[in-house]
C-alpha cells in the first residue's frame, strides 16, 4: 500500500492560532446499544480496546487508544492509523456475539489541530458551542459553519477538529480565516 495521504497533504496556517492538518488518524466506529441493558457490550468494548467507556459527550484516553461518545448507540475509537485494521478485526471478533457494527473509518475524515492560547475563540467564530464550558475530556459533535464537525481538546492550548474528508479544504479555509492575525476578539 502507498503512504496514506491526508486530504490536504498536511496543510498549515500560522495566524494568532496555528491550524495544521494532522497525518491520518486511526478511527473505528462502533454502533451498539451502550445503555445499561447492553452493559455486556460496553464491557466487551472496553476489554477489547483496553480503553474506558466515556460518559455522555465524553472522551477517555487510555494509553494509545481513546474512546469517544458519539451518540447513545455509537462510540468512536481513536488509535494509530496503522493499528486500525487489526484493532477493528479484533473488535469485530470480540463483539461477534453481540449485536454491533464495527467499521474502520480511518480514511473518512480529516483532522486538524489548533494550537495557541486562544483556540477556543477561533472555534467560537464557527461553531455554536459554549467554548468557555468546553475542555479536555469532552468530544463535542457540532457544526462548523455549514458542515458537521467534532472537536476535542487533548490538553489546554491544543484543540482537535475532525470533519469529513471531502470538506477538508472548506474547513481549513474557514479556520485559517478565523485565526488570521488582526481577527482577535478576546472571547471568552
Amino acid at each position, binding site marked *: *500500500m*502507498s503512504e496514506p*495521504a491526508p486530504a490536504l497533504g498536511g496543510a498549515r496556517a500560522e495566524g494568532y492560532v496555528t491550524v495544521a492538518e494532522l497525518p491520518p488518524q486511526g478511527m473505528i466506529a462502533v454502533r451498539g446499544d451502550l445503555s445499561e441493558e447492553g452493559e455486556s457490550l460496553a464491557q466487551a468494548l472496553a476489554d477489547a480496546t483496553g480503553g474506558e467507556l466515556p460518559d455522555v459527550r465524553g472522551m477517555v484516553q487510555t494509553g494509545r487508544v481513546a474512546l469517544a461518545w458519539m451518540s447513545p448507540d455509537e462510540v468512536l475509537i481513536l488509535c494509530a492509523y496503522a493499528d486500525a485494521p487489526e484493532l477493528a478485526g479484533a473488535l469485530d471478533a470480540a463483539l461477534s456475539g453481540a449485536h454491533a*457494527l464495527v467499521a474502520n*473509518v480511518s*480514511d*473518512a475524515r480529516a483532522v486538524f489541530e489548533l494550537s495557541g492560547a486562544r483556540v477556543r475563540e477561533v472555534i467560537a467564530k464557527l461553531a455554536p458551542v459554549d467554548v468557555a464550558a468546553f475542555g479536555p475530556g469532552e468530544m463535542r459533535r457540532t457544526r462548523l459553519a455549514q458542515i458537521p464537525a467534532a472537536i476535542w481538546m487533548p490538553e489546554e492550548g491544543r484543540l482537535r477538529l475532525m470533519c469529513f*474528508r471531502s*470538506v477538508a479544504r472548506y474547513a481549513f479555509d474557514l479556520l485559517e480565516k478565523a485565526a488570521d492575525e488582526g481577527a482577535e476578539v478576546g472571547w471568552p
Partner: protein
Amino acid sequence: MSTRLATGGRLLDRSRRVSFTFDGKRLSGHPGDTLASALMGAGQLLMGRSFKYHRPRGPVASGAEEPNALVNLRDGDRHEPNQRATTTEVFEGLTATSQNHWPSLDFDVGQVNAALARFLPAGFYYKTFIHPRPLWKHLYEPVIRRSAGLGKAPDPETRDPDRYEHLYAFVDVLIVGGGTAGLAAARAAGRAGARVLLIEQTPHWGGRAPVDGGEIDGQPADDWVAATVAELEAMENVTLRARTMGAGVYDHGYVLAYERAGDHLAAPAGPRHRLWRIRAERIVTATGALERPLAFAGNDVPGVMLASAVRDYVVNWAVSPGDRTVVVTNNDDAYRTALCLKAAGLDVPAVIDARPEGGGRLMDEARAAGIRVETGRGVAKVKGGKRVEAVYTCPQVGEGATVQEIKCDAVAVSGGWSPVVHLWSHTGGKLVWDAAEAFFRPDPDRAPLGDDGAANVIAAGAANGALGPGEILADAHAAGARAAEETGHAPKSDAAPSGDARDEAPLAPVWLMPQGASVKLRQKAWLDFQNDVKVSDVELAAREGYESVEHAKRYTTLGMATDQGKLSNINGLAVLAQALGEEIPQVGTTTFRPPYTPISMGAIAGPATGATFQPVRRTPMHDWHAAHGADWEPVGQWRRPYTYRREGESRADAVNREVKNAREALGMLDASTLGKILVKGPDAPRFMDMLYTNMMSTLKPGRCRYGLMCSENGFLMDDGVVARLDEETFLCHTTTGGADHVHAHMEEWLQTEWWDWKVWTLNVTEQWGQIAVVGPNARKVLEKLGGLDVSKEALSFMGWTEGTLAGFSVRVFRISFSGELSYEIAVPANHARALWEAIFEAGQEFGVMPYGTECLHVLRAEKGFIMIGDETDGTVIPQDLGLDWAISKKKDDYIGKRAQQRSHMADPERWKLVGLETLDGSVLPEAAYATAPGTNANGQRNTQGRVTSTYHSATLGRGIAMGLVHRGPERMGEVLEFPKVDGTVVKAKIVAPVFYDREGTKQDV
C-alpha cells in the same frame, strides 16, 4: 451658521486633525468627531434631501435615531449608501457624498415635487397610477424610482474587500446599552459573579449622563463612568464591548449583536463587522430613551433639531448648531439645552414653553440666567428654506395667529422622551401607556418569556421609563442584581449608585403646535422626516378608513424608512388617535422588529463568502482531475469532472472522444461520490426487503444486485447496487446526491417504526475512494496490476471480491453502468489517488483515458439505464420506467408498495418510459414535450409525453433520447412531434430504450 466652538468637546482630541471630503470638498475635523459633528463644525449643516419632496435637510439628532443625515460613504469597492452621519466616526481620508438630489445638494431639480406636494398626499400612487395598467411598468414606476429613493446602490461590478465574521457567545446576563444604567446593571451582576456581556452601540461609555451633568456617588458623572468601566474591565467574568449594537432579541434568549469593529478605520486589519450570536439566560435592556420632536409647520427646515442633540453637539463635540437658538418645549428637560447654550456663550432669544404655567426649577434657573421664557406659546411656523431664519410664535391653544417673529438660526425642540422599548418588544414583551409622561413603557407583568416560561428580558433605567438620574441608577442596579440572582448568583448587598432625584414639573402632551393648526400648517408639519410624512397625511389616512395603526403606517409610509420611525412613531400614532377620536393606548403601536438599526449584509453572511461561500466536496482524486483538464460540474455539493478537455478541444468533442474510448479501449471514472451505507444486524435482511422494491434477502454473500428504493408514497427515490458482505451485512450504494437523505430515511424507519428490529446503519461514503475501470481492456489492466484474480470464472458479472491489487487493499465489484466490461474498485480514501495513478499508468498501453460525468451519462443512456433526477422527478414510480422486473411480487410489503396500488398509480394511462429516435438523427432538446391534438382548458397545446434524457451518441453517431410517453411501450414505431423554442418541430420515433448491445453480451465477458 453652525460652527466649531473655541474650547470644549469632551469626546474630541483637539490636538489632532483628520481630513475628509464631503461632495468632493476637502474638510477637516478632530479624532472623536462623528461625520455629522465634523460637518457642522465645518459650517455644513445641509446634509441631504428628503425622500419624496427632496426638501433640504440637516441633522435632527446626534445618534442612531437620525432620520435625515444619510450619506453615501466611501467609494469604489467600499461604497455604501444610507450611512448615518451621526453614527459614522470620521477617519483620515473618509469620503462621503450627499444623497437624493440632482444636480447638486444646493440646487435640486427634484424639489419640484415639493411644489406639487398638495397633489402627492398619502397613498397618492395607489390612487393615481393604477390606470391604465401598462403605464405603471413603463412610465410611472421608472419616473417615481428616479425621483424617490435615497442612496446610490453599489456598482454591481465592485466586490467588497472587507471581511466579516460571526461569534457565538453564551452568557448568564447580557446587558444592552452602556450608559449609566447599563454600567450600574453590569456592576451589580458582575459583582455577584455572573458571566456578563455588556454592549454599547457607540464608541463611548456613559450615555448622555455626562452631557446632562449631575453627580453619581458624589463624583462628576464622567469620573464615575471611568471608574466603573475600570472596575468592570478588571472583572474576569465581565466582558465589555463598545461599537456593538443589540440588534435583535429572538426566542429562548437568542440575541444578535452587531459589532462595527472596523468602520472607524480606513481599512480594517481584521473583520469589519462581527455578528455576535448570543445565548443569554437573562437580557437587561438598558437602551435609554429617545427624545421626540414636536410637530409644527416647517419643523424640518435645517437648523431645527432635538434639544438633547443640540446639547450633545455643544458638550461632546464643541459644535454650535447656530448663534441664536430658540428652544421649543413641552417639558422641563429642554431648559437644560437653553442653559447649556448660554453657558457656552451662545444666544438663546427665547424658550417657547407650550405649558401655560411653564416648568419648575430648571425654568427658574433659565430665567435667572437671563433667558426669556414664553409660556403657553407654540410655534406657528418656521421661516427659512435651507436654513432657519426665524420662528413665528403663537398661542398654543389657538390656530396659529402670529404673536411675534423671533429671528434665530437654530431651533431646539423637545416633545418629551420615549423609552427605547424595541428589544423588549421583539419577542412579545408588552407595553403600558404612561399618561403622566406620555410614553409607552415596558409592562413588567407581561415581559418576554424564555424557554422555561419565566421572564427573560428585564428593562432597566430610562428604557424602563425611569427618567431621573437617581431613579435610573436605582432601577438598573436592581435589574442587574435580579438578573444575577435569576441565573444562580448571589447579589452583593451593595447599595445602588446614588444620583440626583428627578426634580421636574410635569410635561404637557403636545402632538401638534398650535393645537388648532390650520390645514395649511398641518401640511408643513412633519412627523416622519425621512419618508416625508406629515400630520395631514396621517389625518387623511384616518379619514379614508385606515383605522388600524398598522394599516395607517403602510398607507402613509410613516415609520417605514431606514430609521424605522424612531422619532415619528409616538407622534404619528398620537395624531392618528386624535383623528380617530380615540385614546393613544387604544390605537397602540406598530410592531417592533429587529434589527434595531440596519445591519450589513456582510455581517449576516459572515464567513460565507468567496472560497467559503458554500462547502465544496472534493474526492481524493480532485487535484489530479484539475491537473488533467477537468471541466467541472456541481453534483450535489460535490464537484465532478464533466469531461477532461484537451488543448483545442470543445466540450462536445471531449465527451465524444471519452465515449468512444470507453467503448473501444479503456476508460476510468472517479465514482468516489457514490453513497455507501453499511446495514448490519440479524434483522438486516428483512429491513433490506422493506427498503428496496427487490428481494434483497435472497442475495448471496459475494454477490451484488441492482435495487430501487421508493418513498412511502411509492415514488422512485434512489437506486444503486447492493452488495451482500456477509449473512448479516449489506453495503448499499446510493446516488451521489442521495447518500445523506437515504441514510436519514433508513434511520427514520428504524427509529420510529421498526425500533425493535436489530439493525445498525453507518454511512461510510467518505471512507472509500471508488474507481470504475471500464471497457474491453479493463481486465487486462487489472491483471497487469496483479494480486487479484479478476477472471470471469473467479469474479463473474454482478459479483464482488476483496484482496490486494497492486499492493492496495481493495474491494472490487464487477458491476457496470456503461454496458462494458467494468470493475468498480473501492480503496481507502487516503490511498485512492495513488491507486488511481497506478491504474492510469498501467493503462497507458491499453489506451486508458479518464472520463467525466457527461460520458457516463451517454454510456448509460445508450444502454437505456435510468438516472435518478433525469428519468425521475418525484412523481415517477418504477412501473413508469418499465422496471417491473426489479419489483418483487413475492414480498408482502416494501416501502411504497401500497401507494403503488392506488388507482392513479396503477392507471394504464400513465406516461411510460420509451426510447426516442429522431427521424433526422438530431439531438432532441432537453425536456421537450410531445404535442397531442387539441388544446387544454387554458388554451395550451395538449401534450402526450416529454423528453427525460437526450444526448448525442458518439457510438451510434446520432441523437438518442429517452422520454415518458402516454402508453408509450404500446406505441412502438409511432412518430411524435416535439416543437422547439425556435418554432420548428422535430419528429421522433418511439423505440425501445436500449440503443446499444441489447443482449448485454459486452458487460458479461
